[in-house]
């Protein structure tokens, strides 16, 4: 019985999807509309929409819409989704998704906790190493 409970808890907190209600999604959308247009955030063919969806439903850190880090995390996710091939995007977010963006490979932050450097020159995509 305990084991079943533990497994369920594990599944709940580590599952890929963590769907939030539509009302909650709107709060994220509104917060991020200061960075991206509402049109792009709502257009399912756009990386802006995919990055929003990841932040709202799939991000292992489950940041609240009011968390001050949510905007920077959105921009980095958007950058990855815009420039990495789809499979590499999935792999990258699987590897680094449970970390602060300052610990994502290619990203360096200052003591202020803000991103100071993005260095992904000659980036060797890692799919062959992960799979």
């Amino acid at each position, binding site marked *: 019985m305990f084991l079943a409970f533990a497994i369920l808890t594990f599944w709940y907190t580590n599952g890929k999807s963590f769907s939030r209600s539509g009302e909650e999604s709107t709060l994220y959308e509104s917060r991020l509309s200061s960075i991206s247009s509402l049109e792009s955030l709502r257009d399912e063919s756009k990386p802006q929409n995919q990055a929003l969806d990841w932040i709202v439903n799939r991000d292992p850190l489950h940041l609240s819409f009011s968390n001050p880090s949510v905007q920077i995390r959105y*921009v980095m996710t958007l950058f990855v989704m815009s420039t990495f091939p789809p499979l590499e995007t999935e792999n990258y977010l699987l590897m680094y998704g449970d970390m602060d963006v300052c610990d994502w490979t290619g990203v360096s932050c200052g003591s202020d906790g803000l991103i100071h450097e993005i260095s992904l*020159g000659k980036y060797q995509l890692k799919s*062959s190493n992960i799979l």
Partner: protein
Amino acid sequence: MLENRGLAGKLPEELSYLSSLKVLELAQNKLTGQIPPELGSLNNLEVLSLADNFFDSTIPANVFGLASVESLNLSNNKFTGQIPSFRSINLNTKELDVSSNLLTGNFPTALNLFTNLGKELTERKQTLS
């Protein structure tokens, strides 16, 4: 799949939201499209390296005037339009490389006043037409 290496696609204009950014180094990938003009608002950016990609269109003028820029390497892309004018370039720039693109015009001779920059530019004049 093994050959499928390097970043591709377009830079999102939203990068301009990272106002604390000092270094953006994305050389030797397969990035395309134009440099988002919004990046010109990155007032802390010191190093911008987008060399050896497939960027095209004209280079947004404000990229040369980035407030803190020290090193700007846009070489070996498919940028079109005019070589930047003297007035558009931040005087603190130490390194500027726009060679191996499809730019037209002459380098402004006043650029030789840039102590760290003149030699590099003169040498590279020949590669531009």
